């Protein structure tokens, strides 16, 4: 039997990268999936390919957050799995981060998942379902070139813990995954970047290769399943070992397989 047979799932930011991989994986696992995103064209393409339902929603818009949860509950008749994945990256140190960049990163990566979590909690309490938030390895150990992003993702990890404590007594589990540099993922999807960057020179984690979006989706699928029934409030690194020690940063691309 499929892991998530007949489960009802909502995935935010499902039109590309990790979100798209999560939508695909949950569909393969037998779940009925509704996903959100901003890009109508990509959304429709992912919907056609996976059979999931697309609801256009900008995570920064509070009305769209509410409407997309309502639409998912209406289409699916409830929710068992919620994956809060929508997020944006900003490549700047703290001193170089503009007000506009800061507000966008904090609004999208922190305030939006907070709002989504608040909207879906009553629904998950009914089904004793579970939630997975997509944080980042940068939330475990910050990175100066993506400073506001690191700050926001640290807060996502704490949000995960606080939600787990609050919803635990109702049988609702809440966990976070913390992906390292993922392909295709955040770093290849920076706004305004039309072509994928050459990742061959990136610092490799101890395992020697970058994380693939499918690897993150596999962790999400596990955390959302009954096999993880006593795991809650956790932040699971999916980073090829990058955050295991400082030495990881000295592994050169030449040594990568």
């Amino acid at each position: 039997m499929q892991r998530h047979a007949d489960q009802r799932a909502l995935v935010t930011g499902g039109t590309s990268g990790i979100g798209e991989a999560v939508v695909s994986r949950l569909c393969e696992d037998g779940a009925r999936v509704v996903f959100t995103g901003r890009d109508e064209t990509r959304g429709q393409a992912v919907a056609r390919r996976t059979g999931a339902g697309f609801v256009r929603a900008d995570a920064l818009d509070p009305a769209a957050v509410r409407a997309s949860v309502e639409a998912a509950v209406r289409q699916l008749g409830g929710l068992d799995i919620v994956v809060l994945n929508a997020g944006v990256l900003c490549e700047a140190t703290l001193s170089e981060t503009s007000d506009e960049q800061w507000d966008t990163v904090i609004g999208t990566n922190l305030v939006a998942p907070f709002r989504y979590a608040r909207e879906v909690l009553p629904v998950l309490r009914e089904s004793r379902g579970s939630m997975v938030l997509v944080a980042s390895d940068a939330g475990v150990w910050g990175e100066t070139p993506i400073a506001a992003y690191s700050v926001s993702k640290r807060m996502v990890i704490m949000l995960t813990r606080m939600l787990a404590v609050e919803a635990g007594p109702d049988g609702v589990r809440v966990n976070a995954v913390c992906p390292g540099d993922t392909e295709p993922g955040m770093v290849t999807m920076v706004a305004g970047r039309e072509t994928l960057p050459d990742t061959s020179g990136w610092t490799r984690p101890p395992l020697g290769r970058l994380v693939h979006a499918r690897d993150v989706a596999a962790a999400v699928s596990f955390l959302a399943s009954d096999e993880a029934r006593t795991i809650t409030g956790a932040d699971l690194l999916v980073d090829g070992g990058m955050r295991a020690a400082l030495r990881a940063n000295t592994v050169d691309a030449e040594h990568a397989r």
Partner: protein
Amino acid sequence: MSRSALVTGGTGGIGSAIVRRLRANGDEVVFCGRDEQRAAALERETGAVFFQADATDRAACDASVAFALERLGGRVDLFVGNAGVLVEGPLAGTTDEELELLVQTNLTSTFRYGRALFAPMRRQGGGVMVLISSDSAIRGSHRIPAYSVVKAGVVTLAELFGAEGAPHGVRANAVCPGNTLPGMAGDDPAEWRTTASGAFATADDVAAAVAFLASPDAAHINGATVRIDGGTGAALQMVTRS
């Protein structure tokens, strides 16, 4: 050597203790806050200079930085990011307005002050930031979940300002007090969970840590987090089984 300092949230319990302590060390101090009456009393008592600025008012905060730089002779050696508000209660009942107040006051204003002072500190050859976070930033508290989330961001701000500033002589550290008297969690310790030591920190204890982190004795302490909680957060204390 006399240094110049800017302290936000200087009229509150911990903030005013920090202002007093820095003035006792001989520092020139500009402090911000909302409450004019308490500010006037603190000015009279310490000789520190008040600039009224609500931490959620970006224009007022920018003006307070300009005022401090002008008033303190073009340099700020020490920035203490202390302005903060508390919101209690479950996340499910936390409104958009409450979250916005927490984010703007505790997080965004701290970021914006640090950013505004980063360049002057770099130009003058160095400086120190001490950001007041909370023990709940390290081990979240279910009574104040939204506050815990936002304060975790403040710790990261200290780490990243410290990391970015290190090559330029700019240090940044986070101070994480537990329940403090006087502080923001009210003034009745009978309502508080007990600490590992049985005692609660005073605002002066927090001010002492700020003064140390700001001093040359702490020249190699950067991006660090200091808990001031009597050991409460050091380990989970299990209920004794009889």
